[in-house]
């Protein structure tokens, strides 16, 4: 699978931000198996880009294609299929179900299209240090714990592309490394691509390509 961007420009962005960008108003192709780092200072449209790629927003000019299909023509059902099988995401604002438990949050994603057996959730939770939180309400967890929950959730399904929008902002160094390792392992197993957008370069993310937004 391939994600290609052709001259995409958000409808709301300032001119100067476009000229300096390697992504806006350019032709960019992401192939599976690639590790791409997107460095995006604040206000450059990083979250917008991730939302465009995931199909959450359409306020851009230009074309984004999944393989040769323009996603502007996709309906909700078509996106559902891609989100179940091909594209996973960690949102910057996490988007968890705060009134449900951690386990319910993880399971509701896993049940949709399980890649792992049930027990893998506990193993991942243990690896990222949140195994004691599984039966607690999400709202009682710290932001850092919630970030780890969002990461584990993204790894419960098959995917060709893993979109990450500032996934480590509230994690300490040790947890960042553990989370990155986990995600790289899971991507390698799936021969998937990681697209990591952050404010600055992440040193332990061995990217094949780095693009400035």
């Amino acid at each position, binding site marked *: 699978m391939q994600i290609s961007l052709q001259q995409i420009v958000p409808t709301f962005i300032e001119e100067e931000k476009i000229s300096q960008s390697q992504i806006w108003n350019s032709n960019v192709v992401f192939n599976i198996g690639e590790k791409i780092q997107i460095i995006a200072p604040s206000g450059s449209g990083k979250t917008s880009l991730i939302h465009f790629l995931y199909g959450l927003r359409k306020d851009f000019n230009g074309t984004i294609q999944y393989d040769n299909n323009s996603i502007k023509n996709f309906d909700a059902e078509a996106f559902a299929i891609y989100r179940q099988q091909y594209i996973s995401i960690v949102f910057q604002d996490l*988007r968890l179900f705060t009134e*449900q438990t951690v386990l319910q949050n993880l399971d509701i*994603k896993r049940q949709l299209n399980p890649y792992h057996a049930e027990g893998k959730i506990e193993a991942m939770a243990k690896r990222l240090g949140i195994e004691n939180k599984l039966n607690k309400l999400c709202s009682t967890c710290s932001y850092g714990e919630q970030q780890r929950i969002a990461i584990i959730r993204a790894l419960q399904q098959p995917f060709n592309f893993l979109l990450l929008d500032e996934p480590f902002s509230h994690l300490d160094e040790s947890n960042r490394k553990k989370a990155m390792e986990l995600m790289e392992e899971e991507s390698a197993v799936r021969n998937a691509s990681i697209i990591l957008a952050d404010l600055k370069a992440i040193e332990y993310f061995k990217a094949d390509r780095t693009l400035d937004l």
Partner: protein
Amino acid sequence: MLSYKNIAPFLNTHQNKASRWLSYIGLGIGVLLLLCSVQMYININELLKTKSPKKNGFDFIAVTKTVTDENMVGDHSFSASDLAELKQQKAIEDISPLIGNKFIMKANGGTMLPFETDFFAEAIDNNFLDTLPPSFKWSPGDPTVPIIISSDYFEIYNTLFAPSRDLPQFSEKTMSSIFIQLDCWGANSVKDSYRANIVALSDRINTVLVPKEFLQWANKKYANVDAFNPSRIYIKTKDANNPELLNFLQQKNYHVNKDKTKFGRIKQILQAIVSGLAGFGVLVILLAMVLFSFYLQLMIAKSKENLQLLLTLGYSPKWLSKTVAKKWIPVYIIVILSAVAVTALLHFGFQHFVMKDKEELSPFINWIVIVIAMALLFLSIAVNYRLVKKLLNKL
């Protein structure tokens, strides 16, 4: 396999329980009203069917020329032109004259029943009869004459004649096994005797009927009369209460037996009342569905964020619609089947305790009632699904 169970914790279904239960109760009451009304409509039809003059949508009424003080002496029969004029009326589909015996007839019970009485008989076209058993025919040489009498006369025999003379009463089933002797007197006191038995009862023709072939032959043999003008005719009309028809008959000074038309009227009124109840039932059902749709809208609005997030995470909108809508199917099934069960119970109670197991009524509810219930079930499920789909598409 994903099911409603998986997403249940994420939906806010606990709010507004009261309006939800109210709509279930409303639906139940509305469906019950509608089904009971339909069953009652059918019951009225069945109960008033045998006595009603209508058959296949027509009324049959007897018409004679009015005998007044002034015209008492004279001919009160219908001439050929009278008959032609009647046939021309738009409100009259068909007419059939009643021909009567022109000779003396007597009947006696023979050895079985100790009675003797003067007798009379009439005949009419077969297609005007409401009941025509295959045995109702006669050809010269047959020693037995089949008779059809009106159910009113039969009742008069059973309730007045028989008790006053210590004669046995008969049921409709046993009456055809009783044979009487029919004596026909001709000129020069010539008498012929025939066996006769009652083969059917008529609710339409108020007389004693014998096959037309017999009476025409007997009139010729015993009274030397061929054709003659009838004194009584039956007319077939779409509506006995048609004002045009009644005006015409009144103008011509023809007399109509109003009893039979009154009966039809009673049936009409009863059925109108029941139809009104059915209409009210439909209204209640509609209100219940509206109330339920409010509940659904509220539930989906309160669960909006969660539903949107489920869609963001990759849940299919179609699957969500189907799954949320399916949750209510068991409720609809229970409510409607309960209404059917209560209707069946009420109908059985009516048939058994009120109508005392009258034969015309089946103790079981009519298949139409069940079909309506199934249609309502299908409709409510379909409407519910479409509403959920519409609400989810808006998210």
